[in-house]
């Protein structure tokens, strides 16, 4: 049986890597950009219909994560 001696340290390392302002802002920015592209693309009406929800979600996410520690 393998026992992880320092599980909390590993978890903190992962959290430190992901839950930082930089990567989270990058994700939010990508979602906003995707929403804008969905709004103006000429191919699928369904994508156009979901564009507002996507942009709004990205914007709210950006506003929240810009308060997360660096």
């Amino acid at each position, binding site marked *: 049986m393998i026992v992880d001696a320092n599980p909390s340290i590993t978890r903190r390392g992962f959290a430190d890597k992901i839950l930082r302002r930089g990567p989270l*802002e990058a994700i*939010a*920015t990508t979602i*906003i*950009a995707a*929403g*804008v592209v969905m*709004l*103006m*693309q*000429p191919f699928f*009406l369904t994508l*156009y*219909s979901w*564009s*507002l929800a996507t*942009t*709004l979600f*990205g*914007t709210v996410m*950006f*506003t929240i994560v810009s308060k997360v520690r660096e």
Partner: protein
Amino acid sequence: MNDLSASSRINYQAVMVRPSVERRIRGLSDKALAWLFITPTIVLLLAINIFPLLWTIYLSFTNYRANRPNAPTIWLGTDWYQSILTDPDIWAAMQVTAHFVIWTVVIETVLGFGLAFLIDKKFRGHGIWTTIILLPMMLSPAVVGNFWTFLYQPQIGLFNYVVAFFTSGDASSFQMLGDVRLSPWAIVIVDAWMWTPYVMLICLAGLRSIPDYIYEAAEVDRASKWRQFWSITLPMALPFIMLAVLFRGIENFKMFDMVNLLTGGGPGSTTEVASITLKRAAFESWRTGYSSAFAIILFVTVFGLANIYVKALNKVKSR
């Protein structure tokens, strides 16, 4: 004599009043003083920006019509949003906007960066050329819209004559503003003519921020001019180019005045960008609730893009 005594009485009163006012102000804390100065601005901001925004959000959920203010207002929920986001006509207007935004941003960025690259070489008379290039940017969009309408005239317009001169065709054989295929390009040309200098200015700031010693080090390493451009100039000017792209993208997404003056959205709806569709819904059809919902959709998009813009701006600032 009487005048003299009157003025001395006023002075005496002023001397009596001033210390008490000073004492009262001196009694305020720094925080209170800060609030005293900020309050008028906040009140103005609330009255001019925040209240209309909240009111528009409220109206976007109702059937309110501005031409029938006394009619009962019914709460419709998200009906208008669903209607707009499934309407093929509004989707078409978004595609017209996309055509306008993408082409203007591409042309302005390529030309603006090219001009900035040339101006940065500091040739003889580069100052006067910079001023001449910047002139269109300083004009009002209303003026630009009006005089380009004359330039595009098939009979007397200079644009048609110049094109006919280079293509050996007939000047009156095409109409830039009346042709379904050409009118979307007509508004792109005018916007590119007007705003390329602005992009040039931002790119020039980026190019001038690159220190000379990097090029000197590249020269020592025998890097060719081509290599210097791709490895030094372009990467270091990229944040500034991004800034220009985002700013022009946001501005052109909201474009109204120039397009309204040039084509008014026509012929048909070939140049009907989103803001013109919005104006027609709000002030021609008087569908205030519907147009409020449309305005909120455009606002969310612009707000999202503005967030990206601010992020790019901070990146440039931190350099």
